[in-house]
């Protein structure tokens, strides 16, 4: 085992993928001599050459679209989108081409592509640098979408993503890039839990918090704080957003009977909506309270000085936990009536 940051774990995973399969190519903006704006590809071009670690023109559709062609030629491209908010120019290529080519060719064409995206907020970044676009991709059949939250998962899941014959959108929680953890770089991939399985990050009995990415850390902090108040929270780290491992989620909810779903992406039609619907379908008779969502607001990502009001923190998670533990304390009827009146 080695102590690595989450960012360094991805670097190690990329290096291992390049080593083991010469069809693997990296393609992205500034990923060569600079090593990427987050230095995740640091040293890889020097080690594997500019033919395999390719500095691309500044064109996201171009990066993903040429990667489609490389995959058609038999390569396994791993592309880097520099920031979450820069993926939109490539959206057409991802949802219309990458996601559908296997289907529309009856399986004759495979798209073993990984689209790495430094993702989400909390790092005080400029506009367009802190977005949470995961629901767009989760809503797109044909894509797999994953988001590791620990260095070990980042290392293993990156390698699993590269090995997968399906296209994988790989969200890297950028505010965890520098968080450290133990990584087993020599572990056998076959022994690792499959990429699509969720993980119980902490066991508990009173309520379940389901989340993913950097919010796992926040949820674990909330669970520690709740413990001081005598509440035992279970934290489920989804790891995979498409598909979602509902077996693990449902098992936890059936155990605790209460659930809060947390993410920093906007609320409406987000992952939380999908989770709450599925939980309601599968665990209705076990629920002691309506499932609640703690999410970013339905607003464009706010300026950095205000992002703490958008990204759910420990207190907002605990506030929701209180509501599911004591359902009578839901948001007041008075404020709901005021909102209704305003809308009319």
């Amino acid at each position, binding site marked *: 085992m080695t102590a690595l940051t989450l960012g360094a774990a991805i670097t190690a995973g990329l290096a291992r993928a390049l080593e083991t399969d010469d069809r693997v*190519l990296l393609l992205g903006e500034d990923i060569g001599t600079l090593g990427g704006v987050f230095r995740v590809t640091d040293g890889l071009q020097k080690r594997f050459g500019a*033919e395999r670690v390719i500095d*691309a*023109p500044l*064109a996201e*559709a*171009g990066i*993903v*679209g*040429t*990667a*489609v*062609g*490389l*995959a*058609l*030629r*038999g*390569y396994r*491209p791993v592309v880097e989108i520099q920031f979450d908010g820069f993926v939109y*120019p490539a959206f*057409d*290529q991802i949802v*219309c*081409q990458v996601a*559908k*080519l*296997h*289907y*529309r*060719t*009856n*399986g*004759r*064409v*495979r798209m*073993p592509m990984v689209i790495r995206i430094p993702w989400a907020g909390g790092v005080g970044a400029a506009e367009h640098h802190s977005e949470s676009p995961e629901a767009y991709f989760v809503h797109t*059949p*044909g894509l*797999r979408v994953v988001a590791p939250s620990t260095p070990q998962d980042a290392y293993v899941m990156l390698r699993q993503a590269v090995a*997968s*014959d*399906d296209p994988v959108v790989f969200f890297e929680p950028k505010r965890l890039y520098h968080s450290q953890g133990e990584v087993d770089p020599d572990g056998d991939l076959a022994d690792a839990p499959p990429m*699509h399985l969720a993980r119980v990050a902490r066991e508990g009995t009173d309520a379940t918090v389901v989340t993913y990415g950097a919010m796992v850390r926040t949820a674990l902090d909330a669970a520690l704080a709740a413990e001081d108040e005598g509440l035992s929270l279970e934290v489920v780290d989804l790891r995979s957003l498409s*598909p*979602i491992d*509902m077996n693990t989620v449902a098992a936890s909810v059936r155990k605790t009977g209460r659930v809060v779903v947390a993410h920093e992406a906007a609320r409406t039609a987000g992952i939380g909506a999908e989770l709450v619907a599925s939980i309601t379908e599968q665990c209705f008779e076990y629920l002691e309270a309506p499932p609640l969502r703690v999410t970013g607001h339905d607003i464009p990502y706010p300026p950095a000085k205000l992002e703490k009001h958008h990204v759910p923190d420990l207190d907002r998670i605990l506030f929701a936990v209180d509501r599911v533990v004591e359902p009578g304390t839901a948001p007041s009827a008075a404020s709901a009536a005021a909102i209704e009146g305003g809308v009319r």
Partner: protein
Amino acid sequence: MTMTYTHASPEHGAPERADDVDDVARILQPDGTRVSDPALDRWISDLPPHELRALHRDMVLTRRLDTEGVALQRQGQLALWAPCRGQEAVQVATAHALAAGDLVFPSYREHGVLLARGARPADFVLAWRGEEHSAYDHAALGVAPVQIIIGAQALHATGWAMGAQRDRSTDVAVAYFGDGATSQGDVNEAMVFASSFRAPVVFVCSNNQWAISEPVTVQARHPIAGRAPGFGIPSMRVDGNDALACLAAMRWALDHARRGEGPAFIEAVTYRLGPHTTSDDPTRYRDADEVERWSRRDPLARLEAYLRDAGVLDDSGLAEVARAADAFAAEVRAACIGAVTRDPASVFDHVYAEPHAPLERQRAEYVDYLDGFSR
């Protein structure tokens, strides 16, 4: 030698217009008379009669296929058809220049390219009928899945060419698109990537004057071929209704790419004689005179006149090709009408290459639901 297109008119020094259809390299005049073009001649000096006849035959078959496609749509057998009448020369002749290892990235109108690459009758109709998205084996045919999204395939071709370059092969990728696609970011990004990486890709723009109802002048003020040199890509503007000019230009472009010199660009100036698709009504946006003018430039009549004059084709040869075309059309019709719609559960097939449990559950639920009707 670089063969770069310049858009300054020799006489006036002023920029030409995008819709100047006569400022093109040409070998066959509209009446079939053979003329000389220094840039094109050397690329087809070796064309034997049997190759000329094969070119003509594939153009006739393409036209017959197109007629059949429109008829099948009108009879309710196809949901839609995108006619290619008038564009047979650029499609068939450029495809005739390809080698077996080359991969074509077509738009939805390139029936002649597919035909020249050896597509089976079913390959033309199953998608338009709504049976399958992409019926043919792209690797066996040397044709990537037909692209509907405008211009997206230019990037795929470029990426594939980058792979071919990495493989140290002499394979070339060919992206076909229309004049409308040149407005798309993907086509422009493809030219940036292709030029920067010297990827062996040939861009063939079939400028058929209309992107549904929008004339080429909405896409381009100056001739489209004039853009490529700005990307560092040599280009040619040829008469797209002149099969020999198209063949020659394509041989030049492929040779350029195969020699490791990077991408090349061809603007083939042609005309869509029919509607954009069978759902379109071109009488709303263009006048009959224009169609009549272009009918007099018909690529098939032009080639036939030349081949008769050159003694390569006679009445009996033409009759034989006509019979072959009818037989081919009958096969296309049979493949269309005989198509068997797949099992309902197959809508869930191939969404993923690897098992996906929630989707498998959805399939099981739906199959169970359907089975409920037969219990």
